[in-house]
Structures are given as C-alpha cells and as structure tokens.
C-alpha cells in the first residue's frame, strides 16, 4: 500500500490540539491496539486472518510477533460462534477485539451482537459486562460489489446497549480505538478501507477520544455538512470546491455515532439554517435520518431550516465501475447539492472535475 497524502492538515484531538507524528490510519489503528495490549494483558485480538502475512490489510502487522498466538489468533470460519466466544471472553473479564475484514460479514454475527452483547448488561441486572470491540472494515471501489461494500453502522446505531464509532482520520482512529478498548460496553468500531493509507498527525502517547462530542472540523456560515467515516474526507474536499464558488461550508464529524452528539450539529444549523448529512450507507433509516430528525425536533419550533440527506444510492452496490461510481456520494455531488441549497436560483453549477477527485480513490487498486 503506498503512502498517500490526502490528509492535508493535522486532525485536532478532542481538545483542539494537534501534535505527534504523521501516521497512516492503518498504522494508527495498529498502534492503539499494540499500546493497549502492552498496557493491559486482558486485551487480545481474534478474527479471521488477523495473524497471516497480510495482517488484515496491515492493521494487525507485527502483533503476532510481539504478543504471541495466545493474544492474537485467527479463527475458523464461524462468525456466529466466534462472536459468541468473544462475548463470553468479555463477560469473563477479558477484553477481546474481534476483527472482520468486511462489515458485510457481521450479518452472520447479528444474533450474538443484538440478542446477547447489546442486552447482557441490562438483562443480567448489571451483573455482567461485555467489554468487547468489534472491528470491521467497509469496502469500496474496484469491484467490491454487492456483498463487500456495505456500511452498516446505522443498523447498529438502532440498538441500545451497543456503542458505535466510525473515525474519519488517523488521529481519531487511535484515540477512539483506545476509548473503545477501555469501554466496558460492546463497541462497534467501523473502519473504511479507503481511509487506511490516509495520514494525519497522531500523538505517540496514549490518548482517549471517548463518545460525547462531535467535532467542528472546519468553520463555515452558509451550510452545515456532516460527513460520516470517509464521507468526512469527501465533505472536506466538497468544502474546497464550494469555496471556489464563494460558498462557505461548516464541516462536522460526529466521530461517535452511538451515543451521538447532535448538540454540536444543532448549534451549527442554528447558524447556517442548512444541513446536508452525507452517509456512508443507505439513507433510509440511516444515521442521516437520525441526525435530520434530531435537528428537526430541536429546530422545528424555532423556524425553518433546510435539510438533505446523501448516501448510497437506493440500489445495491454494483460491481462495474461505470455505475459503481454513481452509487456513492463524492465531493462534486456534495458540493453541488450544497450549492443548490445555498443558491437555489443560481442554476446548475459544476465544480472543477480534476479537483473533485480524491487521491485515495484514484490510487486504490484491487484485489481488495
């Protein structure tokens, strides 16, 4: 995997500080797990192919050598039982990190995740905890097709008892992973394949980025753009395109999707009166619907505002690039939607197509 410089500036931590070294998302993930495995020997990693030479697209590189096969091991193909085993280990006081190379495979784990992990602490009267992290990767591009491309975090957001996080940059990947591992609840940790090579400044030391606060990544006045997972990156580029047209967009990264801080978003929309949520998934009953509904609940009585949701096209993800391209939001489409909302009477506006393409998209090649 080549080093792509798509993160143009350091991502601030929760307190707004930047610092540390430039690190790729994939390495930040691994560093967080490695540091936490060093600190707490209850932490271990399991999942299909986490210990082979490809190291799950590099995200578990070196952990086997450092911690040995008791603390990082592959499993049989048996997502249902392996999820149960991870839950049981967590109930017994260990801190498992269960990894899936594609989020789509979590459909095999739903019974354990929804009927057991999400409910155990409550249904056992507070007597049992499930400090579990489930890592999964959203695939995109290059023929991933219908069953290797789904962003399913909205499905998990629906269920009390689970937490959900989808960091958009290397800095947050590290901080959120640390918080996820230390959390006493099951956390669905959602990664995006295309983010792996993106870089940001990441502190060397351990730091936590717990749920609670969405981040205003870039300020703006005309429209609020909320981007989830890699869509945050696409919104940032969309903002640059919009700037060309004199439109000022405020960009918000929710970071944690459950629990979800919408106060930050509501505050922004109170200023801009315009909201576009860009989902990395289908919009129907998606995170964007939740955000739009909360903003409507909060703002409705006060006066009008405009909202639009973007996300996967309401179809299945096709394999052929000629149509797959149109399945996803992209910076140009985000910018166009925002432009139209801000300047409804301005007519069709097309951003510079060259500037609209993200390096991480252009440079990604299969297989997988």
């Amino acid at each position, binding site marked *: 995997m080549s080093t792509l410089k798509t993160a143009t500036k350091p991502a601030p931590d929760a307190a707004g500080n930047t610092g540390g070294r430039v690190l790729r998302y994939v390495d930040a993930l691994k560093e967080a797990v490695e540091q936490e495995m060093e600190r707490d020997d209850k932490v271990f990693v399991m999942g299909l192919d986490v210990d082979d030479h490809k190291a799950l697209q590099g995200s578990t590189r070196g952990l086997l050598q450092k911690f040995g096969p008791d603390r990082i091991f592959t499993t049989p193909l048996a997502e249902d039982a392996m999820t149960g085993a991870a*839950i049981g280990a967590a109930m017994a006081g260990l801190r498992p990190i269960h990894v899936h190379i594609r989020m789509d495979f979590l459909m095999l784990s739903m019974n354990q995740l929804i009927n057991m992990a999400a409910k155990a602490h409550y249904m056992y009267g507070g007597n049992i905890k499930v400090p579990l992290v489930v890592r999964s990767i959203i695939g995109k591009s290059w023929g991933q097709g219908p069953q290797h491309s789904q962003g399913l975090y909205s499905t998990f957001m629906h269920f009390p008892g689970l937490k959900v996080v989808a960091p958009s940059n290397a800095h947050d990947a590290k901080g959120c992973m640390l918080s996820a591992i230390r959390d006493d609840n099951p956390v669905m940790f959602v990664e995006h394949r295309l983010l792996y090579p993106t870089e940001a400044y990441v502190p060397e030391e351990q730091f936590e980025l717990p749920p609670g606060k969405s981040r205003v990544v870039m300020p703006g006045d005309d429209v609020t753009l909320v981007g989830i997972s890699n869509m945050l990156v696409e919104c940032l580029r969309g903002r640059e395109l919009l700037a060309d047209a004199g439109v000022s967009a405020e960009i918000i990264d929710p970071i944690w999707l459950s629990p979800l801080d919408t106060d930050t978003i509501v505050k922004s929309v109170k200023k801009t009166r315009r909201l576009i949520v860009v989902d990395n998934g289908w919009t129907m009953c998606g995170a964007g619907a939740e955000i739009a509904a909360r903003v409507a609940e909060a703002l409705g009585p006060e006066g009008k505002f405009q909202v639009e949701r973007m996300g996967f096209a309401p179809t299945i993800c096709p394999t052929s690039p000629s149509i797959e391209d149109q399945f996803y939001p992209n910076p140009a489409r985000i910018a166009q939607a925002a432009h139209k909302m801000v300047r409804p009477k301005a007519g069709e506006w097309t951003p510079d197509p060259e500037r609209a393409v993200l390096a991480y998209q252009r440079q990604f090649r299969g297989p997988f």
Partner: protein
Amino acid sequence: MPEADTQTIRRVYASLRLIRRFEEEVARIYPEDKIKSPVHLSIGQESVAVGVCDALNKDDLAGGTYRGHATYIAKGGDINGLMAELYGKDTGCTRGKGGSMHLCDIQNNVVGSSAVVGTTVPIALGYALALKREGKGRVIASFMGDGATEEGVFHESLNFAALKRLPVVFVLENNFFAIHTPIARRQAVPDAICERVQTYGIPAYRVTDADVFKIRNIMMDALPKMRRGEYGPIFIECHTYRWREHVGPANDYDSGYRSTDDLKPWVDNDQIPRVAAMLDPDERAAIDAQVEKDVAAAIAFAEKSPFPAAKELYTHVYA
C-alpha cells in the same frame, strides 16, 4: 450401587428435591398471576443438572437455557433471588430485568441463560478461553436442549472448543422435543449426535436412563483430566423427559403430540424417589423439611420484595 458415598447421595438428593419442590411451587403459584414471566419448567429433568453440577467445584462455572431453573439451583444459585426474579421483583437475581429466561448468579458462578436457542453455547467458549488462560483448572458446563444441536452455532462451537482444547463440558438435555415437535421430525439421524460430536475429536458420552450417578461419574472421571489443562472439551448427552407443557405450569398430554404412555417410563424411573430410597428415612425427612423451609422462605422473600422502581428502566443499559 451404591455408586456414590452417603455424603454425595445426601447432597444429590437434596438438590434434586429442592429443584422439584421449587418448581412445583412455581406451578402452584402460577395461576395466581403473581409470577410475571413465562416459565419453562424442568420438572422430570432434574437429574441432568444435578448429576453434572454436583461433580463441579464451587468455583467452576455453569449456565443453562431458558429452561434453566434446574441448572441454576443445582449449581448453587441463590433461590431467593430466583423466586424474586420470577415475581419480577427488584431483589431478583437480575433485578427483575431478565425474568425466568435470563437467569444468572455470578457470585455463585451461574452464568447467564438466554431465550434464544443455542446462544449460550458459544458464550461458554469465551468463558473457557478465559479459564484456560487463567490456568487454575476451572471448567464451565454449558447446558443445551436437543433443539440447540440443530443450530449451526452448535457445530461451530464444537469445532472451536476442540481446536483450542477448551475446558467446556457440553451437556445435552435431550428430552426428544423442541416445543411440540419430536426430534425425528427435525433431525435426519436423531440418535447420532454423540457420533457426530466425536468426529470433532471430542469424547462423547450418552446416558439413556437419566441416572444421576452415571452422569455424575462421567463428570468425575473426566474432570481431573480436563483440569490438567490439555484435555479439551467433553460432551454428555443425557436422555430425559419434560413432564409438563413446554412453557407454563400445566400438563399437555391431551393435546395430541404425546401421550401419558410416553411419560410413564420416565415417572417410573424418576430419580427423586430412587435416590430417596438410598437414604435413611430420618435423614430424608430432615432434608425434605429443610427443602420445604427453603422454598417457603424463597416465596416469602419474593412476595415481600418490592418491584423495581421506575428509574430502573434506565439503569444498566450501559456499564
């Protein structure tokens, strides 16, 4: 015979009797609508839980299914907490939140049960991973019904347990029915479960007469080897019979799917009178009296306990 010393016989009897009487009382109280939970009674099936759990140490773990009163009691779970749970009270073992199908008593090493068939089988793998890592030779017994052996997760779990040599005792309470459907209408070869389990390299035992001491002896044989660490899981299939309806307190021999003729051999073979007969009558009477006292105390405890306060709806969603 005697397959066990007097001490053991006494303990086993007390446990069998306690479960039976506890559940008979549950069935008696049930029509009064004080019990706020569906109940899946183990009446008739007690010897499986008792045979297995009596062989376990206090610090070993065990967990059952939604038909889990027997496992809970046999493993030493607190019966006041159990009865209060059935009443939906705040003092219940899960504070009124789980009800009969989600029992646990972590103090007494009873791990949580579940209303979704088969779900706790892989959970036991995770506990066993932790026990193995701990290295103190503790084991976990994981109970399931015959229906669970049809779920894919059962097979996935066997393979993983064998692969990692985990200290799990898989206990099959084969009562030949899943709700009202007999095993022969659900499984292509209903009597090959042990043979199938053996193909994973897991020692498998079948006890067809529900003999509580036979079950216990299998455990007593296997446990030292399991505790030594590298032996891996075992599997015990115990034939047994559910005397009452699938869920609820009543009989259902008039509903057509089975008959009292099917029941009869199991009543004749009831382990409670059998083990009782091994005891000195005075001793037996003393145990019986203690059991009555304990069950009555549990009922009284449950009755006088408060319901959960309204705010309890919102506690324990997150740890």
